[in-house]
């Protein structure tokens, strides 16, 4: 088997994640989908690392995880705050940007 298949898998997962971001209204699920996309990227990085024979790809994946962790922490905190204020975790309720 060619390891390129990992890349196809990563692309597939990424796309699923993206579609999920677009169709789900629950902010928590949206976040999960973002995590899914990040993970898909990580998979791609790891595969590339293997292909190129150096560890830089893994390092990048590692940093991605760190940043994702930070993002999740802040993001979830925001969701909780929003939920407290509006009693809803739906992203559609936060539509004040329209004219």
């Amino acid at each position, binding site marked *: 088997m060619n390891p390129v298949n990992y890349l196809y898998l990563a692309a597939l997962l990424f796309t699923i994640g993206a579609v999920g971001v*677009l169709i789900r209204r629950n902010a928590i699920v949206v976040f999960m989908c973002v995590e899914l996309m990040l993970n898909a990227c990580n998979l791609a990085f790891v595969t590339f690392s293997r292909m190129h024979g150096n560890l830089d790809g893994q390092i990048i994946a590692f940093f991605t995880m760190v940043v994702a962790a930070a993002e999740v922490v802040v993001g979830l905190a925001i969701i909780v705050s929003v939920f407290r204020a509006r009693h809803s975790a739906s992203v559609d309720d936060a539509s004040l940007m329209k004219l």
Partner: protein
Amino acid sequence: MENLIALLIGAPLLGAAVLLCGGRRLDRSGHWLGTLLAAASFVIALALFADMLGKSADDRAMFQRLYTWIPVEGFRADMAFQLDQLSMTFVLLITGVGTLIHIYSIGYMEHDERRRRFFGYLNLFVAAMLLLVLADNYLLLYFGWEGVGLASYLLIGFWQHKPTAATAAKKAFLVNRVGDMGLSIAIMIMFTTFGTFTFGPVLAETGQASEGKLTAIGLMLLLAACGKSAQVPLQSWLGDAMEGPTPVSALIHAATMVTAGVYLIVRSADIFNAAPDAQLVVTVVGAVTLLFGAIVGCAKDDIKKALAGSTMSQIGYMILAAGLGPIGYVFAIMHLVTHGFFKAGLFLGAGSVMHGMNDEVDMRRYGGLRKYMPVTFVTFGLGYLAIIGFPGLSGFFSKDKIIEAAFAKGGTEGWILGSVTLLGAAITAYYMTRVMLMTFFGEKRWQPDENGEPPHPHESPKSMTIPMVLLAVGSVAAGAYFEFAGFVEWLEPVTGFAHGHSPLSAAAVTTATVAVMVIGVGLAYLQYGRKPVPVVAPRGSLLTRAARRDLLQDDFNHAVFVTGGTHLTRSLVYVDHTLVDGVVNGTAAAVGGLSGRLRKLQNGYVRSYAVSMFGGTAVLIAATLLMRAV
């Protein structure tokens, strides 16, 4: 001596500047200052005249160049003056009559609170008029030309609180501007033809220019002259200009400014000599105006407007004479000077009558004034005799020469022009007799003024009568003096002179002139001396009614230019607002509508924006791939 020329203009200009900027502290002394400076100018003029008489006839012209006014690549206008015999004649007339009228105004304007300003304007006028006749190039002449127009505007509208005065002033300026357009176009043609517009070179080189160009220049100059000298078709402003104070009418609208057109044509004699077609048009304009003014003068009941019609007619004589070429130039100027005396005298007399009659101007409400205003009566009467050409008085000599010259034009033209001038002389006698009879003879037809006060006619103060007396002396003597002192020889070096070949002998013309004069006087006597004059004007014939309305000229102007112009500007304002602005605003509205649609895409939903981002990313990737593939 040359250096004094600038002083001629400088003195009244200084007066104008001081009086107009001086403020109220000059209110009590300003009129003396103004009169003094005008008189100073007259004295300088006399000194220059004496100097000029001392030189030989061909060497009398003097020049003074101050500085270059407009120095531009290939274009030079100098602030330079030329004083030759023609200019000298005018300078003496302007400063002389001007000074007299300044003196007259001291009394006439005594009760006007803005007298200082009046004198300032008068001084401004004298300065501008002197600039006009002293300029050594057409552009500087144009400067003076517009300057007198401005002074005329200010003085006609001097009583600005009267809407009629303000309107008359505006009308005078506007109609003059149409004429000025002619002058500026003439200067432009000159510049492109000769490369200069200084009198000397232009007039010297006329022989080399094509006749078409010269005719164009001539016609444009004629247009200018028509505006300034109230000739048909630009004559309509003169009657209205009588709204100004009477001294103004005397000085500007009788003696000096309105004759500037004659000056312009005579000054450009060389151009007209080389353009016979233009000359013909000049004579036609003169002849038409001559009759036009005379007919209008017959119908007017307003003493000043009657005199204004007369002025128009007399200037018609001058223009006609100027159009005759070398046989007429001298006589045009001669009539101009004598006319300056007697018409100024007549106007001052009219002013004196109004002064005594509570500013009443309707002759139908005068009558029998000779006993109450003896000095005015005598001076006015002398002016009257002069204008109708009573033998021996000044008008007789000058007008007779013009009639003679008109016949001398030769051919059918000569006969027609001669007959017209004779007819004009008859009408002149008629309407002037009418004025005389209605004002000074007959029974009293005085009416109380709007305050209910009946008039108490009285003789005017000395400051007013003395100028009238002096002008009357001029009216009586000037013609004979010119005839016998050699006016023709005086002007000949400048204007040239030729004897015409008249089909009639001089004696025959003179006899005819006197005869038609007697007929005119007789007719007027039958109508106004034998019968009582009604206070309310009778309806009159169609011609009379038309003549009262200036032969419908104003109606024509109103219908065509005023109404038409108003409609044009209104519709243009509308077009500007809806069409020109509308196209731009329409574009803006279209963009606005489009953005209104696009705005709906901004629904505020994060997910919706995310789709756009996502789709955009997809498109970008596609583009990248495509670029790589290509």
